[in-house]
């Protein structure tokens, strides 16, 4: 990776954090300033999630077709900046922040998949900053502390960085690769099932101790470090080995020892190792549709509302579900490996 690519990746990853922080913090703070109650804030947050994540596949298709990833990012940060000034009206904050977040994610996400198309590390780093931003946003929003000037400065810096650091995606026009892969629909279905179940776990789980702010932030840090470490391990060794040695150890820990703080942190850290692999696999299968792929994976986050379950209280439901999702992921990657032998480090 060249120095320029690294600067672009780190810059956009930091902005990813700022965007995720801003979206959720602005909704909470704007709602609180209008004395809205928890139920109302929940509705606004769900609407924001629907706009920010639910619209990504559709915008992704459009952005891939028109090849306007950079412009999508630029419009995204401008919309988020506008949401900041719309603080007086929570509903408008939801609309502007939600659409801004969606456009930013698909544009910058496709860049992270394109920088080194066969590697997990760039999308791993990019997504790690997102979870840190989102968690910080929840903490600041629920605490009701608003650093007006600092927040505005962060958003303005994001706009300036995007204006002066354009991204260009490599020219891959068609997805011929997919036509040559047998069982491609089965592979895609297995990958999406694995992502959906992991999303239910990742966001639907409520640890008993996470209401404590420091523990909550530590949990987010464990996820972020896990995503980056897993991506690096997978690139260095092999995807299947990384999944086998991390997720299968993580599952019993997070299911049966979730009430023990340190054990849950370690389990969450290991469980996050496999985040980037389905994303990179899909983007290689559907070459030239990186924005759509990133949007599709983010869309799966909506499954937290389908599940919304506390896996801690139902370990005997959680255990088979998580094992099934991991087996689905391994099977999909195993089926895929012969066709990307020279490019993806799936089996090594």
């Amino acid at each position, binding site marked *: 990776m060249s120095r320029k690519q690294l600067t672009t990746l780190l810059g956009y990853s930091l902005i990813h954090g700022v965007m995720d922080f801003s979206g959720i913090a602005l909704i909470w703070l704007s709602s609180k300033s209008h004395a809205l*109650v928890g139920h109302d804030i929940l509705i606004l947050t769900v609407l924001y999630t629907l706009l920010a994540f639910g619209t990504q596949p559709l915008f992704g298709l459009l952005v891939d077709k028109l090849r306007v990833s950079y412009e999508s990012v630029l*419009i995204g940060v401008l919309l988020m900046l506008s949401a900041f*000034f719309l603080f007086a009206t929570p509903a408008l904050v939801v609309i502007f922040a939600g659409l801004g977040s969606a456009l930013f994610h698909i544009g910058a996400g496709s860049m992270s998949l394109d920088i080194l198309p066969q590697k997990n590390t760039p999308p791993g780093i990019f997504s790690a900053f997102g979870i840190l931003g989102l968690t910080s946003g929840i903490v600041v929003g629920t605490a009701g502390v608003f650093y007006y000037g600092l927040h505005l400065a962060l958003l303005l810096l994001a706009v300036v960085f995007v204006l002066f650091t354009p991204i260009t995606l490599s020219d891959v026009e068609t997805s011929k690769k997919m036509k040559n892969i047998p069982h491609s629909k089965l592979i895609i279905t297995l990958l999406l099932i694995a992502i959906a179940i992991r999303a239910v776990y990742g966001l639907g789980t409520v640890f008993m101790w996470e209401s404590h702010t420091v523990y909550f932030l530590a949990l987010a840090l464990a996820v972020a470090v896990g995503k980056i470490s897993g991506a690096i391990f997978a690139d260095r060794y092999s995807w299947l080995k990384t999944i086998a040695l991390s997720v299968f150890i993580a599952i019993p820990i997070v299911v049966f020892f979730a009430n023990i703080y340190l054990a849950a942190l370690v389990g969450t850290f290991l469980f996050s190792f496999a985040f980037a692999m389905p994303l990179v696999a899909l983007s290689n299968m559907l070459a030239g549709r990186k924005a759509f792929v990133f949007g599709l994976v983010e869309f799966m986050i909506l499954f937290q509302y389908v599940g919304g379950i506390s896996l801690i209280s139902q370990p005997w439901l959680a255990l088979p579900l998580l094992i099934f999702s991991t087996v689905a992921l391994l099977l999909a990657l195993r089926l895929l490996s012969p066709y990307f032998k020279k490019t993806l480090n799936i089996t090594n």
Partner: protein
Amino acid sequence: MKKLKVLTASVLMLSMYVVIFTQRVLADMPAPDGEEYHRTSRPTPIVNGTTEISESKPFFELIEPIHILLGVVVVLVVIGALFAIRKMRKK
């Protein structure tokens, strides 16, 4: 081409701020009875002068139809801007 992108973004930003400031002016405009013209939240009822009781709002009071309309307009403007950028780039 770079100038074109910046110009497009600036026009988009400007048009959004027109909407924002119109909305904010409307929010501050006093109604004949002295109340705010466009109140986005109801006053919190106070019991015995000290205890605040908040209640949740109906959905369409939380998200008013004008907000939904504005959201649709923003989506259309964004899609239009993306198509326009693509068209200008081809030229």
